[in-house]
């Protein structure tokens, strides 16, 4: 019995898997972070330099915290550009561990300097995801690193980017599933541990949020929504909804559905049969929050839903997709 438990535990947390799910998460999440910080670019001086009002979490009066002294605007802009460049390199998967580490350090710097005032859960989730992905091996495929590793391989053939193509004969060959293919290379494998850690964190986030709504006062009826739709976050769409005088029972039903979704998402995302439905529901939920309350940052979570999919399934799905495009290409070349 103990051997079975240990075996299942090791299989769940530590087995070697194809890194495609992590790679897709790296690309999607990387682009999201680029968007998140790029939108701040026009106002970097007021957000992160001495030209604005800066209240760091720790007063910059000790040798350890002097780094939190707000810099002059040109320095602040330079540091911010470094972050953007490194996030781009992270997304592309080039020297990911180094650029990812620097990006995490800069994110922490901005947190202590200014982001702590907003004190959000999503900044914390983003930091954790960035740190875990940095050391996950997510750059082993679908990355600049893998392209360069493959390109420097066998002469004459462009190697693994999902296809094998001979420029002399102009013939393409279908991507071969696991094992030594025609390229002679064994596809890379990484530990599933980082993928599990992030997926568990997302699970816990949804579960905590859902259970909290069951416990906290004010979430037992739809009034909390009507109040929220008239608050600081309300968008014109939310205000229009309020002014339409929809009955309170509709808001009660909406609250019930939201809590039901938040309590079932943590389990549905893991279910292989129901996953795609919960992916869609989760995306619609976060889209609704973005449209009604202007809180769009949690749209990063659906981007990370790929981490709930079995890594082998992600790889075979990508293979099918690549084969489809390769065959389309071959048809066009004829």
């Amino acid at each position, binding site marked *: 019995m103990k051997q079975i438990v240990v075996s299942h535990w*090791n299989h769940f*947390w*530590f087995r070697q898997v194809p890194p495609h799910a992590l790679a897709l998460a790296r690309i999607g999440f990387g682009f999201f972070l680029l968007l998140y910080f790029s939108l701040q670019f026009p*106002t970097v001086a*007021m*957000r992160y330099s001495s*030209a*604005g*009002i*800066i*209240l760091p*979490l720790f007063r910059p009066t000790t040798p350890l915290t002097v780094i939190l002294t707000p810099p002059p605007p040109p320095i602040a802009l330079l540091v911010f550009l470094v972050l953007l460049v490194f996030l781009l390199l992270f997304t592309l998967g080039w020297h990911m561990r180094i650029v990812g580490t620097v990006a995490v350090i800069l994110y922490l710097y901005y947190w202590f300097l200014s982001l*702590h*005032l*907003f*004190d*959000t*859960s*999503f900044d*914390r*989730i983003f930091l*954790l995801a960035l740190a875990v992905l940095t050391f996950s091996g997510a750059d082993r495929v679908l990355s600049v690193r893998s392209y360069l590793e493959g390109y420097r391989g066998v002469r004459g053939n462009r190697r693994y980017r999902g296809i094998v193509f001979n420029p002399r004969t102009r013939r393409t060959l279908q991507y071969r599933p696991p094992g030594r293919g025609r390229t002679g290379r064994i596809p890379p494998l990484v*530990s599933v*541990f980082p993928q599990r*850690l992030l997926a*568990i*964190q997302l699970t*816990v*986030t949804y*579960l*905590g*949020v859902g*259970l*909290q709504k069951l*416990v*906290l*006062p*004010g*979430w037992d009826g739809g009034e*909390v929504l009507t*109040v*929220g*739709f*008239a*608050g*600081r*976050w*309300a968008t014109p769409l939310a*205000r229009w909804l*309020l*002014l339409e005088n929809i009955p309170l029972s509709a808001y009660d039903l909406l609250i019930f559905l939201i809590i039901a979704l938040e309590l079932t998402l943590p389990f549905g995302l893991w279910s292989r049969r129901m996953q795609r439905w919960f992916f869609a529901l989760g995306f619609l939920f976060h889209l609704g929050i973005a449209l009604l*309350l*202007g*809180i769009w940052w*949690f749209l990063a979570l659906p981007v990370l839903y790929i981490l709930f999919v079995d890594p082998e399934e992600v790889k075979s799905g990508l293979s099918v997709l690549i084969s489809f495009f390769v065959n389309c290409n071959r048809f066009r070349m004829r």
Partner: protein
Amino acid sequence: MGSRHIAGNIIIACYGVITLTAFIYTLTRIRLLPASVWPLVDHSYSMMAPYQGDDEWNADLLAEGLRSDGRWESINLGPYFPQGRGEANVRAFLKGFWRREKGRWFARYSELARQLLLHERGRGRSIVSVRLTLERWPRAPESFGHLRAGPLVLRHVLAEVSL
């Protein structure tokens, strides 16, 4: 079992304890771990507690500068909080200091006022003092500031800083 497995299991154990503690705190407000590791638990708790409730009031920070002729004039905080209204509104209330500095976070408003005074004087405005006031008014579906007028508005001076 290799060293990687051992390290991985240690990480899982630590993560599990911190997450479970944060979970219990989320639901019951009971602190199970000592203060030395509480920043980690707080981080985990904050990841699962994004929106805990709301009230029926809108609030905003009003900044005013005292001119040398004794008249108060309003200062536009928009350039200093260039984020969207929701985020700017939260930031203006220095939310990040609430839990960490408990009853002492009000003192941070004096710092905010002092920086505002210096910046405004740097922009050429001849003001000698800055006053920060918290204004609260009932919410209305028409707009954020629809009822921000007259006797419905409650005011509370948070800080006043002079040269």
